[in-house]
C-alpha cells in the first residue's frame, strides 16, 4: 500500500513535476467541461480542424520570436470565426471544407517552422508541447484562459443547451444560432490556446474528445457527465505524469509526458468500453436464457 502511495506521489517532489501536475489538472478541468459541450454539439471534427488551424499562428509567433500564446490566440480567433461562418453556409460541403482548412493551414505552419534552423526539435515542441518545461507564468496564463472560457460557458449555458438539443426550436424562439456557435467555437479555440505550451496542438484534441467520450459511456446526466469527464481527465494527467517519470528515472525509458497522458486517457476509454460491452453481453445472454426457460 505504502509502495503504491509512494509510486503515485514521489514523482512530484521536483518543482518542475509539480508545475506539470498543476497545469495538467487545470487543463483537465477546462477540457473536461468543454469536451462535453463539443460532444453534445457534435463538434469533434471541427475541434480537430481548429487545433490544426492554430498551428500556423504559433509557428509564425515562434519564428518571429513573439509570444506563442498571442500567436495562438490570434490564429484561434480567426479560425474559430471562419469555421463558424463556413458551417452556417449551405453552399459548402462541411467535411470537405474542414479537411481542406485543416491540411492547408497545417502545411503553412510546417513551412514556416521548416525555415528555422532547429526544425525538427521546434516542430516537436509546437506539436506535442513540453509539459515538464512550463513555468509559473504559463500556469497563470492557463488559469486565466480557463476562467474566461468556463465563464462564457456558464453565462450562455441555457442557450447552449437549447441549441444543442433542438436546433430548429432554438431558431424558432428567435435565437441567433450564429452567435451561440461563434461563442462555443471561440471557447474551443481558447482551450487549444491554453493547452499549446503543455501538450501542443496535436495532442489537445485527445484532451477534448476522449474524457467526454469515456464519461458518455458511464453517465447520462449533464452535470455528472461534466464532473466525470473532468475526473477522468485529471486521473489520466496524474497517472500519465507518474508513469512517464517512473519509466524515465527508474527504468531509463524516455516516455514523453504529454503523449503518455493521452495514452492513459485512451486506455481508460478502452477499459470502460470493454467493461460496458461485457456487461451488455452478459445481460443479453441472461435475458435469452430467461426466455429459453
Amino acid at each position: 500500500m505504502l509502495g503504491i502511495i509512494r509510486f503515485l506521489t514521489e514523482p512530484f517532489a521536483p518543482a518542475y513535476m509539480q508545475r506539470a501536475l498543476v497545469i495538467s489538472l487545470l487543463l483537465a478541468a477546462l477540457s473536461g467541461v468543454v469536451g462535453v459541450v463539443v460532444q453534445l454539439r457534435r463538434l469533434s471534427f471541427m475541434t480537430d480542424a481548429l487545433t490544426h488551424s492554430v498551428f500556423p499562428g504559433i509557428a509564425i509567433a515562434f519564428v518571429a520570436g513573439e509570444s506563442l500564446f498571442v500567436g495562438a490566440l490570434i490564429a484561434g480567433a480567426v479560425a474559430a470565426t471562419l469555421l463558424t461562418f463556413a458551417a452556417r453556409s449551405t453552399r459548402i460541403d462541411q467535411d470537405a471544407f474542414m479537411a481542406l482548412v485543416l491540411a492547408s493551414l497545417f502545411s503553412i505552419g510546417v513551412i514556416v517552422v521548416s525555415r528555422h534552423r532547429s526544425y525538427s526539435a521546434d516542430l516537436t515542441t509546437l506539436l506535442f508541447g513540453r509539459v515538464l518545461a512550463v513555468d509559473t507564468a504559463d500556469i497563470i496564463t492557463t488559469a486565466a484562459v480557463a476562467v474566461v472560457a468556463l465563464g462564457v460557458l456558464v453565462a450562455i449555458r441555457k442557450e447552449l443547451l437549447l441549441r444543442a438539443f433542438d436546433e430548429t426550436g432554438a431558431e424558432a424562439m428567435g435565437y441567433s444560432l450564429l452567435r451561440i456557435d461563434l461563442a462555443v467555437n471561440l471557447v474551443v479555440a481558447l482551450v487549444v490556446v491554453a493547452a499549446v505550451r503543455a501538450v501542443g496542438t496535436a495532442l489537445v484534441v485527445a484532451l477534448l474528445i476522449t474524457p467526454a467520450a469515456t464519461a458518455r459511456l458511464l453517465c447520462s446526466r449533464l452535470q455528472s457527465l461534466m464532473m466525470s469527464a473532468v475526473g477522468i481527465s485529471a486521473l489520466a494527467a496524474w497517472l500519465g505524469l507518474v508513469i512517464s517519470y517512473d519509466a524515465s528515472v527508474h527504468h531509463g525509458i524516455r516516455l514523453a509526458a504529454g503523449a503518455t497522458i493521452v495514452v492513459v486517457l485512451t486506455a481508460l476509454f478502452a477499459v470502460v468500453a470493454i467493461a460496458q460491452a461485457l456487461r451488455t453481453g452478459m445481460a443479453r445472454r441472461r435475458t435469452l436464457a430467461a426466455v429459453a426457460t
Partner: protein
Amino acid sequence: MTNALHVHDLCVTYDREVVLRDVHALLQPGDSVALIGPNGAGKSTFIKAILGLVPASSGFVEVLGTTPAKARPLVAYVPQIDHLDARFPISVQQVALMGRYRRIGWLRRPGRVDRAATLDALEQVGLADRANDSFGVLSGGQRQRVLIARAIAQDAKLLLLDEPFNGVDSVTQDVLIEVLGRLRAAGTAVVMATHDISVAHLACGHACLLNRHQVAFGRLDDALTADTLKATYGHHAVMLAEGTALLSTH
C-alpha cells in the same frame, strides 16, 4: 382584433425550385387549422415560413399583426419528436423549462416563477411526477407531451405543431386534444401538420390541404371533402365514411 395568422399568396422556393405556392390562410385568435397533405407536400415548409425561417419568394406572411421574425417570442413551435436525439443528457424539467428561456433572457438564471410555470405545464400534460426523469427514458408519446408542456410554459399566442400525433399512444392523443382545446379557449391559435384526418376533426376547426400548392383552405367541413382529398392525395385516397378516409402517404 389582430389576426393570429394572415397568409396571402405565399410562394416558397428552394434552389430555384418552387416547393410551395398559392397559399392563403386567415386565422383569428383561438382558431385551429390542420395542415393536411402527403409527405413532401410542404407542410413543414409552411410552418417554417410562419416562423420566418424560410423566406417567402412572393406573397406575405403576417403573424400576430407583425413580421414572422418579430412575432417569434409569441410563437411556440413543437418539432417532430423523432427529430430530437432521445439520448441527449437532459431531464424532463430541463426541456419544459426551455419554454421560459426568452422570458428569462440572456445571462440570467430561471427564477421561482419560471420553475412554477414549468411544473404547472408538466402537470397539464400529466407528467409532473416525471419532472426529474431523463427525457430519453420516456415513451415517444410522453416525450411529445413534454414538448407540448414546453410550448405551454412559453405562453404563446400562436402554437405550431409538426405531426404531434405521429406514433403516439391513445393517452397522449387524449391529453393533446384536451390541452389544445384549453389553449384555444384561452385565445391561442393553433397550426398543426397532420396525416390523420380523424385527429383533424377532433382538434381543428379549419383545414388547409397542401400538395406543393394549396388545394383548399377554409372551415373544416367545407375544405375537407372527398374531392379535395382526392385532389391532394391523388388515387391514394379512399373515402370510407363521412369525415374518414384511408390515406397512403407515399
